[in-house]
């Protein structure tokens, strides 16, 4: 269970997150949607105690992240696939992380197997493709076998097989009763993966509910629903294409 209560974050002149309140329940995959700059990543960073909220709080299983006794056993997160030393192997990266989190060393081989990186586990991370880095980040999130999982844009760079694998993985974790929050811009994929949605725009909550609730009685597609909900809160509006010759 993740509870976000009246969360606010201001970076100098921009209000990134503004009085945001929502709850992510266990047992379901919750999609976290919003236009670019809506504050999704900032919110995730505050949930994980990396950024300090200016007001409000984010609780995991009733506690702030910093107060969790064994954080990696409670929460697994993939925020940025770049967060690995380029010269370190996947195995070495996971090994120090396991040590830091007080996890048994055997978990490293387990999660490498889960994400399918065993064969390349001893190669330096800089040789990895984006999809392999995603898998390494997912492995790091799974390391502590946590009850709460957060993924920020986890399927970017994964091949179709990887996308389906990830979908099955998070759905089975949700079916085990875990809490799963996934942010993504890929709405078609999200429609297949998530059953609950949290939609934010300009740092504020736009809508929260199940996919079918938000779609309305006509059963609109996720894309239609999303665009209707966020139409008023898009930060970067695209103009119409004007060809140079017409001007």
């Amino acid at each position, binding site marked *: 269970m993740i509870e976000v209560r009246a969360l606010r974050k201001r970076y100098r002149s921009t209000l990134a997150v503004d009085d945001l309140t929502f709850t992510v329940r266990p047992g379901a995959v919750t999609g976290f949607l919003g236009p670019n700059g809506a504050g999704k990543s900032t919110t995730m*960073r505050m949930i*994980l*105690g*990396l*950024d*300090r909220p200016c007001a409000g709080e984010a609780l995991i299983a009733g506690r702030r*992240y*910093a107060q*969790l006794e064994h*954080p*990696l056993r409670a*929460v697994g*997160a993939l*925020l*940025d696939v*770049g*967060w*690995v*030393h*380029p*010269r*370190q192997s996947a195995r*070495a990266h996971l*090994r*120090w*992380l396991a*040590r*830091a*989190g*007080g996890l048994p060393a055997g978990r490293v081989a387990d999660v490498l197997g889960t994400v399918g990186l065993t064969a390349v586990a001893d190669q330096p991370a800089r040789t990895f493709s984006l999809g392999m880095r995603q898998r390494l980040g997912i492995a*790091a999130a799974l390391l502590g076998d946590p009850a709460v999982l957060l993924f920020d844009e986890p399927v970017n760079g994964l091949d179709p097989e990887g996308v389906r694998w990830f979908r099955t993985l998070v759905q089975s974790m949700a079916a085990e009763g875990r809490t799963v929050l996934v942010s993504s811009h890929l709405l078609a994929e999200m429609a297949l993966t998530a059953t609950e949605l949290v939609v934010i725009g300009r740092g504020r909550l736009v809508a929260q509910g199940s996919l079918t609730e938000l779609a309305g009685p006509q059963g609109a597609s996720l894309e239609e629903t999303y665009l209707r909900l966020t139409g008023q809160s898009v930060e970067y509006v695209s103009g119409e294409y004007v060809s140079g010759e017409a001007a």
Partner: protein
Amino acid sequence: MNAIAAERSKLLSSRSIWWCAGLSVLLVAGPVGLIAAVPESGWQPDGTEFLTLGQLVVLALAALTVTGEYRHGTIRVTFLAVPNRTTALLAKTVVVALASGVVGLIAGLAGRGTAWLMQPDTGLAELGSGPWRAVAGSAAVFALSAVLAVAVAILLRSTAGSLSLLLGWVLVIEPVVASLPRVGDDTGRWLPFANADHFLYAGLPEPGSIFDAGMPFGPWGALVYFAGIAAALLMAALWVANRRDA
């Protein structure tokens, strides 16, 4: 303890630590060997003359272990595993300082050993306890230098900024301040690295104190003073790290 084990694992799995350790020892002992190989120079090195060169490498290495984590984002992964930032950063400081201390001790012994091997019949023993304080004390000075560098790196987070400040401080700011008339005597003798040097070299014929007024403390007092500055910087760095976004 978990945090310390993780930091040790990180440090030892990087290749640059071994290169830097080797370079540090080489820079301390190498020039001693070169000078001793030319008896016509009339300079009989006692082996402690070039500890500062090794210390510069350790300053850079210690700073890089921190700024590298900020650059690659692994510091955030560390804070996810160890949300108490004081614990996480202190663990890193302890591990880097211990490693630097070992490098300092090896460098000190290598310098002394080179001087002794190359000039077996000169009266090195006559120099008394002074050089031995420098030989073994280099462990303490290197370790404390690492603490200071880690603190600066936590505060600045950028490799370029930290290296410029640390190396510029040792190589430019302290010598320039020390050479200024009047100001040099008042201020220069209170600067951190002047005190680290005083601990290493006090009582030796060279380089001796460059300040007319002499140093404010004896050699051991100077070491405590240097440690105090490193500790104060580290506390400031931890205070800042606990308050800002990772």
